[in-house]
């Protein structure tokens, strides 16, 4: 599973992208965020506020309850500010 971090999440985690293999019980975006944050302070800080951090799975916006599967591309970012 490929994880991408944008804007200040990239700055806080020090990571633009990473390949991960979460355990089988991690089946949702929310569970994935908790698993990514565990034991890594920069990641915990970046992913701490699920209300503020947005997510996309395979380039579609996703909610914490949405599923994630092996091979997915998951991205985390702040609310968008384009235009």
């Amino acid at each position, binding site marked *: 599973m490929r994880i*991408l971090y*944008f*804007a*200040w999440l990239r700055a806080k985690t020090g990571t633009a992208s990473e390949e991960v293999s979460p355990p089988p019980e991690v089946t949702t975006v929310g569970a994935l965020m908790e698993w990514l944050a565990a034991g890594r302070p920069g990641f915990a800080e970046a992913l701490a506020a699920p209300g503020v951090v947005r997510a*996309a799975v395979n*380039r*579609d916006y996703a909610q914490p309850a949405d599923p994630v599967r092996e091979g997915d591309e998951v*991205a985390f*970012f*702040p*609310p*968008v*500010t*384009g*235009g």
Partner: protein
Amino acid sequence: MIKIQQEMFDIGAELAALSAGRTDIGAIASFVGLVRAHGDEPITAMTLEHYPGMTEKKLGEIEAEARARWPLQATLIVHRYGRMLPGEPIVLVATASAHRAAALESCAFLIDWLKTQAPFWKLEETAAASRWVEARGADDEAAARWRR
């Protein structure tokens, strides 16, 4: 048509290209967003980051939505990314139709939805520091008025 690019664009040339060689277009509406130096601490530069792959997808979806809702002959979104200076254009949205109502409304729709849907993030530089721009509630409200 969607163009996502670092390079500066020529507003006049882009608009002229919309109707070049065509006689079925009666109205072209457009919006240009520019980098503005503002506030107590004027910004000296702005950098736009985007999500390659998702940006094209979302802008394509927004454009398809506009074409489904209004009778349009052409649509154009040009959105820059990378570092740019105050006064430079960031985004051009243009729509072409037989009559003005569809062109004007769809143009407003496109920029309102783009503001809440397109995966770009702005980093403002001032003399003192750089800071990530926060999304505005007003943008969500503007997009909500188009919800059906």
